[in-house]
C-alpha cells in the first residue's frame, strides 16, 4: 500500500501549499468574524458602562457614568471603533479589557495555558477512550459491551456538558468527597503545584472528555464494523493473520478515516464545551473569561477571544484535512 511510503516520506510540499491557501482564506473570515462580534456586541441590550460600574453604578451620578462612557470609548459609532481596534491589533496592541482592568494580552496570556491543558487532556481522553471502546464494541456487535456503551453514548450525547459537570461535582466532590469541586488549586493553597493542578484537573477534563467521547466512539464503532465486513479484512483473515492484526492493522485503519474528519469538526464543540465546563468548575481559563467578556460587553477582550476561537476552528479543520490526506492519499491536499 502507498500508505507505507507516505509514512516514510511525508509530502511536505503539498501540505505546505494547502496550509498556505488556507491561511489566505482565513483572512477574510477573521475580518468578518471580528466585525460581526463588534456588531452583535453593539446591538446587545447589555450596557458596557453599567457592567463596568457594577454596584457602584447604582449610586453614581449620570455625569460620572457619561464620563466613563467616553473614557471606555463605547460612545463612538461601530465602524470606527472596529477599525481602530483592528489597526492597533495588527500592530500588536490588543487594547485593554474593561471588565478585567488589564491589558487584553495579559488576560489571554495568563489563561490560555490552563485552557489548552484542559482541552488537550479532555481531547486525548475522548479520542483514546472513544477509539478503544469503539473497536471493542465493533468486534462483537450486539454484545453486552456494545449495548452498554452504545446506549450510554447516546445518553451522553444528549446530556449538556454543564449538567454532567454539576452531576460530577455532586457525586465525586460532595457525596464521595474524593476530588475537589473546582478551582485550580486548593482554596488554602497559595502556590500552583503540579500535584494540586493534577487533582483539580481530573473532574473537568473527564467531564469535557466524556461529553466529547460519544462522537468518537460511535464513528469508530461504525467505521470498524463496516470495515470488518469488507474484502481486505476477509482477505487478511483468509491469509491467516492474527485477529489482533486484522482488527488493529486493517479494520481500524480504514475505520479511522471518518474519525479524522471528526477531530477537526469537534474543535468548535470542544470550545463551547470548555466554556460551560470552565464556568462550572471555576477553571481560570479563556472560556470563563469569554462569558464575562460577553455579559459585560467588553469589546476588545471579546474580539480577541473570538479571533482565537475562530483560529482554533480553522486550524482544526486544516489539521483534519492534512491527516485525511496522509491517511488516504487518494484524497490528496487540494483542500
Amino acid at each position: 500500500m502507498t500508505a507505507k511510503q507516505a509514512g516514510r516520506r511525508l509530502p511536505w510540499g503539498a501540505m505546505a501549499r494547502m496550509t498556505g491557501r488556507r491561511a489566505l482564506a482565513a483572512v477574510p473570515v477573521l475580518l468578518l468574524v471580528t466585525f460581526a462580534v463588534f456588531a452583535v456586541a453593539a446591538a446587545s441590550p447589555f450596557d458596557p458602562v453599567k457592567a463596568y460600574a457594577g454596584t457602584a453604578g447604582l449610586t453614581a451620578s449620570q455625569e460620572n457614568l457619561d464620563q466613563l462612557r467616553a473614557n471606555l470609548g463605547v460612545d463612538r459609532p461601530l465602524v470606527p471603533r472596529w477599525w481602530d481596534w483592528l489597526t492597533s491589533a495588527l500592530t500588536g496592541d490588543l487594547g485593554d479589557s474593561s471588565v478585567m482592568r488589564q491589558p487584553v494580552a495579559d488576560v489571554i496570556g495568563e489563561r490560555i495555558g490552563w485552557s489548552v491543558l484542559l482541552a488537550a487532556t479532555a481531547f486525548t481522553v475522548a479520542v483514546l477512550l472513544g477509539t478503544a471502546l469503539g473497536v471493542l464494541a465493533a468486534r462483537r456487535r450486539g454484545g453486552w459491551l456494545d449495548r452498554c456503551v452504545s446506549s450510554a453514548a447516546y445518553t451522553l450525547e444528549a446530556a449538556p456538558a454543564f449538567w454532567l459537570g454539576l452531576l460530577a461535582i455532586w457525586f465525586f466532590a460532595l457525596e464521595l468527597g474524593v476530588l475537589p469541586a473546582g478551582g485550580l488549586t486548593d482554596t488554602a493553597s497559595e502556590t500552583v503545584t503540579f500535584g494540586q493542578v493534577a487533582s483539580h484537573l481530573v473532574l473537568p477534563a473527564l467531564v469535557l472528555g466524556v461529553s466529547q467521547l460519544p462522537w468518537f466512539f460511535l464513528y469508530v464503532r461504525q467505521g470498524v464494523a463496516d470495515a470488518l465486513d469488507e474484502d481486505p479484512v476477509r482477505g487478511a483473515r483468509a491469509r491467516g493473520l492474527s485477529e489482533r492484526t486484522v482488527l488493529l492493522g486493517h479494520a481500524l485503519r480504514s475505520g479511522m478515516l471518518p474519525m479524522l474528519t471528526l477531530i477537526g469538526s469537534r474543535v468548535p464543540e470542544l470550545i463551547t464545551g470548555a466554556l460551560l465546563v470552565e464556568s462550572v468548575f471555576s477553571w481560570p481559563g479563556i472560556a470563563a473569561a469569554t462569558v464575562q467578556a460577553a455579559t459585560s460587553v467588553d469589546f476588545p477582550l471579546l474580539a480577541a477571544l473570538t479571533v482565537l476561537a475562530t483560529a482554533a476552528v480553522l486550524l482544526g479543520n486544516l489539521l483534519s484535512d492534512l491527516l485525511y490526506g496522509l491517511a488516504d492519499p487518494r484524497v490528496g491536499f487540494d483542500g
Partner: protein
Amino acid sequence: MTARTVRPIRGTAAAALATALALTAAACSNPGSPGGPAAEDGVVVGIAYEPDSLSPLLGYGKDGNSKIFDGLLAFDADMELKPALAVALPEVSADGLTYTYELRQGVNFSDGKPFTAADVVFTYRTILDEKTNNPSKTELDALKDVKAVGDHTVVFTLKYPYAPFAERTVLGIAPQHVAAKQDVNSGPFTTRPVGTGPYVLTGWSKGEKISFRANPDYWGGAPEVKKFTMAIIKDDDVRATRLRSGDLDGAVLPPNLAKGFKGDKTKKTYEATSYDYRLVTLPTHHEVTGDTAIRRALDVAVDRRTMVDKILEGAGKPAYGPVPTDSEWFTKGTERAHDLDRAKRILDDAGWKPGPDGVRVKDGVRAAFPLWYPSGDKLRQDHALAYASDAKKAGIAITTQAGTWEVIEPRMKHDAVLAGGGSPGDPDFDQYLLLKSTLGGDGFNNMAWYDNPVVDKALEDGRRTDDKAARKAAYDTVQRELVKNPGYTFLTHIDHLYVVNDSWEGLSTQVEPHDHGLAAGPWWNIENWVPKK
C-alpha cells in the same frame, strides 16, 4: 507529527491521573482533621462576590476594611470614626470647608517605601481625574482640592459644606511611587496592589479566590492570622457544602442554610444588622403610584412583620425608611403598623372606590400598576409577590414582572421596581441619593423621581451642618415627611448571616451595607483576631 505530540500528552495525563489517585488516597486517610484545611494560623472564608479591581483608585475599599490598604480614618465596631493613617480625627474649619489631617509617621508601604502626604494627594487627585474610570467618584463630589503641607499634613478643601466628608476618607491610600507610573485603569497595580494595610496580596485568581498574607511590618502590629483566603463561591448551596466539608473556615450564608449549622458546636453564627433595605419605588410620574392616597394606603397595607418572619426567617427588621429602626438616626414614632382597614379608609376617603372586579377605580383610572424585580433574585421576587398580595387585599392590583436591569432601567420612570441598597456611615448617604428631587432619574439615584420641597430642604440642611442636634432635626423632618408622602414603600432591613469556625477570638460584626462579604462580615477586622485558648 501528530504521533509525536500525542505521546507526551498521554504521558502527562497518565502522570496526572496517578498523582490524583495518590492525592485522593492521602485525602481519604485523614477525614475531618480539626481546624480545617488551612494551616493553624490561616483562615479561609467563602464570599459571594468579588471586586472588579483591587485598586483604591478605581473604587476598591472605598468604605474601608480593604485589608491591603488603610484609609486616613477607619470605622470601628460601632461605625464610629477612628484615626488610621492620620494620627487623629481631622480638624474642620468653622465654615466646614477645610479638613486638615495630621499623618502618621514611620509608616511604610509593603514594598518598604515610606508613606507620605504626597501619596494622599496623589490618591485623591487621581480618583477625581476625569480619565480615571472610578464609578464611585460621585461620593467625593464635594471635594474641590487636596494639597500637602509638608510631608505629614494634608488639607482638603470642599466646594460646599458636607458634614459626612470625614466618613469618605476611609478609602485606601495608594502609593504614588508605584501607581503613578502606570495606566490607572489597566496597569498591573489593579491586580497586584501595594499598600500599607495589615495584609499583602499573594494571589488573585479571578472568579476563584483572593489570597492574602499578613504584613509582618504592619504599623498596627503584625496580624495573628498569617494567611487569609477569600474563596469566591457564587452558589449558596456550594458554599454551605464546602463549609461543612471543612474546606472553608467561614462563609456568608442565607438564613435557610445558616439554620443547618445551629447544632454544630464547632461553629458560631454571626448575625450582622445592616442598612441593607428592600423597597418598592412608587414613581411620581405614574398616575396611580404618584397618588399620595395610594402611597399611604400601600404603606399601611403591607405586612412587614410577616415578610421578616416568612421571607427572611426572622433575620431582619421591618423598614420604614432608609434608616434602620435601631439606628440613632431613626425617628421614633414613624413606625407604621400593618392596618388593612386603615388602608381601605384612606383609599375610600380619597375617592378610590372598589370596581366590579374588586380593584379600586377613581375618575376612570384603575388602581393597578406593574412591579418589576430583577430576574433570578429570589429574595426580591419573594418580597414582590408578598407586596402584591398585600396590596390586592386593599383593592390595588399589582402585576409582578421579572426582567434584567437592561429591561427594567428604561421603564423606571413610570414602573415600580423592587430595589435594594443601603450604606451605613452617615444618614446622608442613602437619604440624599434616594430622595433629593434634582437626582430624579440620575442613574439609579432617586428611582421614583420623589419630589418633596420640604425633604429637599431638610436634606441640604442635614449635610451642610456639623452640629449633631441640627442634623438629627433635619433627618427627623425627612422621616416624618416620608410618613405623609411615602414615595417608596420600605419593606425590610436584612440581617446578614455568617457561620464561622469557633477557633478565633475577637470576632464581631459592624452595621453592614448592601454589598457585603468582602469588606463587611465578621472578618472585617481579621487583623485583630487572636487564637482561642
